[in-house]
């Protein structure tokens, strides 16, 4: 029982991170048909922005966090869109997939060559104390992660649904042409989604780095699981991504604990294949009309 | 005359909204049947249901009395039913000749012979005849993607005839084609109809084109058959006028 609670909380914490990353991933897909194979690296990089600001810029941690966020928005948001996505989007999906794959390699190697090849400790945002619930020891960090992630996504949901800009963004996602006719500044809306994605990954980065440590290769698995979460949950649904993320996080822990550690990596993949074959729109997703 | 194509009480609805609400008709060997109707009257849906692109909600489609409802498009085509699409559907990266050979190759020999046999599946002469017939000789080796719209339209039609089909369904063949070429196209269709004894069903907006081409006309409105008969009769039919111009 206590074990179960233990596993659930840990799983939810990890899952919350997957969710954050997956949400950004789906946003990009919806508004600009960008499948970002570098999404995992996007989570890895901001932590190093922060570390670099402290190491080279001699900034204090809070300042460094701010600088890191700004850098993320600029590099992973604006530059990513302007330099990589915009020139390529007209060629269709595949070239963009290819260059995000290359981008992932680029970011990894860049961090390895110019910062460090080994894992770096990352300052915690809050006291690393534990609390005990029905015998299970739960790190405050985990609860904060879950809380912040859910809050962030809820805020995003609200923004998309309730604000003018948010609705314009959704319109852009559903039918750019019509949106343009309706006088929505589509280009700007798309840019917003890229900024939001950058913000989400930066948030994920500072949330996990204190626990998972900052390392150039951290993105590899994270990005992959985030994709899977997005697809399993429902590619065209923000809440789908959340569900997918949490589900995978919990599942991973339960499988490792009660089934097999050697094949823990396989379970999300089976889930992915099953979902794609039997419910391509995802567990919570809407089916998209596909006809001639 | 026996019916080449029989449609019985065909219904198709998308999530409650009925696009085709119980349509029945027959097409006889050698005739050129036109189907007209205002936008959203269900013409294209009807087509796609007949041709297996969409699953009809209910009803039956027969070719030569043989039920083919829900048959895969490729098998249907092998039975000698071919079609053109409302929007251009050529293979832009293949040359005109390759497009035509492709249109015929699956009707030749077996999978094995298509791998090990001749590269053109013996269709070059047929393709060249088709090219001459549609006056595409000047661009025969160009990639289809580089042809003018009108030329692509001709190629599109030519592909439909490549396998010598018994029944051809043409979805707005006249769409976006300039008048001179239109007359040309009409002539070609007539000739083929006469020469190959091919049966045509034509969906068209262009009244003049339909009236001058077809031997019989069906009028569709809101997914139902509201009138049919010879071009002149239909032209005068008040229900048709109402359907088009409302009141």
């Amino acid at each position, binding site marked *: 029982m206590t074990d179960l609670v233990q596993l659930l909380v840990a799983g939810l914490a990890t899952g919350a991170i997957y969710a954050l990353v997956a949400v950004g991933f789906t946003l990009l897909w919806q508004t600009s048909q960008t*499948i970002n194979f570098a999404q995992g690296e996007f989570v890895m990089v901001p932590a190093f922005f922060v570390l670099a600001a402290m190491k080279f810029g001699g900034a204090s941690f809070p300042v460094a966090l701010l600088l890191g966020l700004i850098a993320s928005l600029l590099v992973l948001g604006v530059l990513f869109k302007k330099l*990589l996505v915009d*020139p*390529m989007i007209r*060629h*269709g*999906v*595949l*070239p*963009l*997939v*290819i*260059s995000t*794959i*290359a981008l992932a*390699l*680029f970011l990894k*190697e860049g961090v390895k*060559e110019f910062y460090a090849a080994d894992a770096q400790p990352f300052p915690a945002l809050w006291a690393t104390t534990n609390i005990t619930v029905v015998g299970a020891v739960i790190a405050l960090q985990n609860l904060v992660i879950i809380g912040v992630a859910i809050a962030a996504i809820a805020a995003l949901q609200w923004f998309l649904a309730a604000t003018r800009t948010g609705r314009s963004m959704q319109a852009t996602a559903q039918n750019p042409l019509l949106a343009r006719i309706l006088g929505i500044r589509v280009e700007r809306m798309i840019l917003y989604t890229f900024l939001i994605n950058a913000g989400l990954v930066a948030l994920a980065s500072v949330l996990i780095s204190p626990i998972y440590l900052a390392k150039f290769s951290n993105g590899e698995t994270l990005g*992959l699981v985030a994709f*899977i979460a997005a*697809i399993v949950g429902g590619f065209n649904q923000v809440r789908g991504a959340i569900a997918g993320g949490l589900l995978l996080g919990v599942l991973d822990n339960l499988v490792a604990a009660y089934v097999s550690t*050697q*094949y823990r*990596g*396989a379970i999300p*993949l089976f889930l*992915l*294949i099953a979902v*794609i*074959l039997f419910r*391509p729109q995802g567990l919570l997703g809407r089916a998209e009309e*596909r006809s*001639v | 005359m026996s019916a080449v194509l029989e449609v019985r009480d065909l219904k198709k609805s998308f999530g409650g909204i009925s696009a085709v609400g119980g349509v029945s008709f027959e097409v006889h060997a050698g005739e050129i049947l036109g189907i007209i109707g205002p936008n959203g009257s269900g013409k294209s849906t009807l087509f796609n249901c007949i041709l297996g*692109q969409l699953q009809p909600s209910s009803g039956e489609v027969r070719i030569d009395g043989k039920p083919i409802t829900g048959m*895969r*498009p*490729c098998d249907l*085509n*092998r039975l000698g039913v*071919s079609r053109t*699409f409302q929007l251009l*559907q050529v*293979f*832009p*990266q*293949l040359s005109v000749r*390759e497009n035509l*050979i*492709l249109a015929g*190759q*699956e*009707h030749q020999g077996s*999978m094995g012979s*298509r*791998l*090990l046999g001749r*590269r053109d599946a013996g269709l070059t002469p047929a393709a060249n005849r088709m090219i001459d017939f549609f006056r595409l000789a000047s661009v025969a080796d160009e990639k289809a993607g580089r042809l003018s719209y009108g030329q692509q339209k001709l190629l599109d039609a030519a*592909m439909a005839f490549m*396998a010598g089909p018994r029944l051809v369904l043409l979805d707005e063949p006249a769409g976006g084609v300039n008048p001179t070429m239109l007359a040309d196209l009409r002539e070609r269709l007539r000739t083929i109809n006469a020469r190959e004894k091919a049966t045509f069903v034509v969906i068209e907006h262009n009244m003049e084109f339909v009236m001058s081409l077809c031997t019989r006309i069906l009028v569709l409105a809101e997914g139902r058959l509201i009138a049919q008969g010879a071009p002149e009769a239909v032209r005068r039919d008040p229900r048709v006028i109402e359907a088009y111009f409302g009141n």
Partner: protein
Amino acid sequence: MTRARNLSRAIAALAVCAVLVAAPFGLKPYGIYLLSLWAVMTIAAMGLNLTLGYAGQISLAQAAFVGIGAYTAAILTTQGWPFALAFLLSAALCFAIGWLLGYPALRVQHHYLAFVTLAFTTLVFLVLRNEEWLTRGIYGISGIPRPDVLGWSTGAPRDYYFFCLGMLGLVTLATGWLVRSPWGRAFMALRENPIRAASLGVDTRRYTLIAFALGSALGGIAGALYAPLVQFIDPTPFALGLSLNLLLMVIVGGSGFFFGPFLGALVSVLLPEWLRFTEGLYLLIYAAFVMALMAFCPSGLLGIAERLFRPAAKTDDPPALRARKTAP
């Protein structure tokens, strides 16, 4: 025009063959090894080019098939089976598995398919690593023998290079025949417009499965040649990285161009050598190069070549990329 082109083509082809045959005599074992590796990788990339470039089905599973092929060959030959038999079995096995993997492709497209195949690669890696009784797990299989072909021992680097080159030659001829046959035409139709293809009697379902199976079989063949080349295999080289790498080879060379994989594999195999002077930075440079290429000429190096030498043919999207837009 065609006769003149064919002639010069033949001459160029002969020139290349001459170079490939002469090369090992001017090279040290290292160079020969790299060229052998190039030949093997080219075969794998040709397989992917068939699936992706011609039939328009994106697949990230090629590494898995190279792995399956390599392990089949390694396990059987170290058990004393004749290479020829192991070789054929590798190809057959990959053909069968590839056929099965094709079924998802009938249901889903684009990124969905990419992720199914990606998942498959990772699953195969896990099996190779965890099923020690079969694959010796992380320890890998060593002492893989190089074959004797009709009494000709390919043990020495140069001999084995010629063996790989011969295989590459055969595969090239076979694939060349295939893509020019009605099958190849049907593949391209599948890539450019499956709906229209179906309406012309092309059995899209069957051709999709065939495309997957054949592409995978070539992957298996590459694997069966890779194992005796390195003479040791463990699961690590057959992880997702190789799939991505092969994908890059096809795209960089020019997806849908018959000779694209040759060039792509050449770049990917020799780049570290060319960029030696940059110390650790060559991966960075490669990545930057790929991104630039995608931005300016997504049809790959051969696309550039076409642009340069045939201004008439204004290179727009490469065939493989254009596909998706008309797909349902």
